[in-house]
């Protein structure tokens, strides 16, 4: 269901908006994709940082404590990855955060796990503000929004547990529209946050002469700080045409992103283009953490029907090649008539 439909009567827009926000939880696959993506990103980055954890987040970063002392976070967070704490407390907290990130991927008790991950992540990243960047900020903000969303309605252990319980539904504690409203508000905020990032980034860039002249990417490739693969960027740097295309494409993809979302085909193009852009930034500039976060949140812009088609294809392929690994039956063709509850559980739907 789309609020903005080309054939829609515009006088009916308030009613459609009301239905979109209250009647059901929208973008449920996209939100599940963000949850899984975030869990994976956090788990992988904690594991990658594991060898460096003490210098990055532990006692080796004590020199930066004055920034923690003067930041605006509430004091109750001081106990997390805190200054002067016993080494075993730090190790325990670090391991717990890894476990929580894995539980987030699996969608186990997500209502509880997602807020815990948020608190743990704030505690960790606050410990060393010198590692902080746009990715850290965005991860925090998006995680807060996810606390209001039903992130485990799809592709999760929670969904499987709910499906098994379908014969004996629990009496809901709150009216059904309330969690729908909060979930959909979170979806809107995530989408809005991404649009703001793309628009604001391009507004800053169009002020600069190096972007205007189409050479900005060359300079980014030259910096030692971001030289993840200097052998490759050294080959790319003299390619004037490529540098010009990459520089202008970066600005225009960002600037036009929200407008390209309005049409089905341009949306596909825009999502493929921004994903390519982020992978390029992640790979060639070493900013993979930030790039993967952006890609994960862009999952909310993909239509539900695309996810359903993808899920069915994935399950059929898995059932064909690895039948013994399948915890449940693969969907049969034609699959559109009704999703199997084990695969597409929806405890809210009556």
């Amino acid at each position, binding site marked *: 269901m789309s609020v903005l439909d080309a054939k829609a009567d515009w006088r009916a827009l308030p009613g459609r908006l009301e239905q979109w926000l209250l009647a059901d939880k929208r973008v449920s696959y996209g939100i599940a994709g963000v949850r899984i993506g975030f869990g994976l990103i956090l788990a992988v980055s904690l594991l990658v940082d594991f060898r460096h954890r003490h210098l990055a987040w532990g*006692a080796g970063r004590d*020199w930066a404590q004055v920034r923690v002392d003067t930041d*605006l976070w509430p004091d109750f967070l001081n106990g997390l990855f805190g200054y002067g704490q016993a080494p075993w407390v730090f190790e325990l907290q670090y391991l717990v955060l890894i476990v929580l990130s894995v539980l987030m991927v699996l969608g186990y008790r997500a209502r509880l796990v997602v807020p815990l991950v948020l608190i743990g992540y704030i505690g960790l990243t606050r410990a*060393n503000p010198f590692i902080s960047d746009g990715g850290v900020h965005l991860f925090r903000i998006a995680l807060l929004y996810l606390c209001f969303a039903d992130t485990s309605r799809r592709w999760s252990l929670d969904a499987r547990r709910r499906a098994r319980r379908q014969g004996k539904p629990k009496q809901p504690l709150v009216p059904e529209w309330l969690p729908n409203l909060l979930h959909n508000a979170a979806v809107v905020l995530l989408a809005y946050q991404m649009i703001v990032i793309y628009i604001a980034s391009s507004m*800053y860039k169009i002020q600069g002469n190096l972007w205007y002249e189409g050479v*900005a990417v060359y300079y980014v490739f030259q910096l030692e700080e971001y030289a*993840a693969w200097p052998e490759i960027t050294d080959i790319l740097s*003299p390619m004037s045409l490529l*540098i010009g295309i990459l520089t202008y494409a970066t600005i225009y993809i960002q600037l036009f992103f929200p407008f390209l979302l309005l049409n089905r085909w341009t949306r596909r193009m825009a999502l493929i283009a921004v994903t390519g852009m982020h992978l390029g930034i992640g790979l060639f500039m*070493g900013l993979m953490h930030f790039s993967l976060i952006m890609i994960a949140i862009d999952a909310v812009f993909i239509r539900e029907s695309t996810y359903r088609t993808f899920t069915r294809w994935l399950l059929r392929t898995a059932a064909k090649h690895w039948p013994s690994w399948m915890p449940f039956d693969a969907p049969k063709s034609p699959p559109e008539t009704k999703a199997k509850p084990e695969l597409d559980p929806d405890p809210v739907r009556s």
Partner: protein
Amino acid sequence: MSLRDKGMSKKPARRVLRPSAAARVSLALVLVLLGVHAFATFGRVAPNNPISAAYYEPVSGHMEPMFAQAWSIFAPNPQYVDLRLWVRASYDDGNGGEEVTEWFDFSGAFYTQVRHRLVPPRHWRIVSTLYRNHYNAWDALNADQKSLVIDDYRHDGFDELQTDLMDAGGTLSTVEHYLRYEQMFLEFATNVQLTLEPDREPDWIQVRTSSQEVVPYSQRHNDEAEPDDPFFREKGWRPPIYGSERSREVFTTQFERYLE
């Protein structure tokens, strides 16, 4: 309140809801909150404009620290200088004289952490962020204060430097802000020096920063082109700043691996 399915078509059932008054009031409230938050978010991250200037205080109060964000990376122009941090130390030579070490660039050891890795560890950013934050704090000082920080202050503590900086004008918050970053820089550099020479403690520490312009775009086809000489900003000699024993041990153990 009721929900009903509109039949079973090929698409999953579309549900229609007849909202109660409570649902509509809640919806209106959420829409207002979304609107305010959306306004604050855009006002915070957009380039400087009259709207964000007019609402700076309330917007900052709402956005910090949870929604803090800035999206001007590589803009308006991407950085075109390589940033480096350096340290050298002074030791008693045992004959009543002074032994001064060579300058050591400790940023390179962090930058190499990003090389040839699909998902690099994130601590490689520490030195460049320290450079930028320290630079911004230094840049807020006035010309007299900037010339003072070049002078040597071979005293225990930083009271004399703070007094002189205050006497040179400016606000207390600017001076305190600068001193915080200078001291973080010095503690970091002291840890580096202790890694380089673990068997002795320096009497004094000196730090400097350098920025070096990369080969310009116009010279991209010239294989002989070299970057310009780096531009250095030195500080005077200062007392080393030691963290806790565990902090030093953790830092030096880890940093030693980066030097291998």
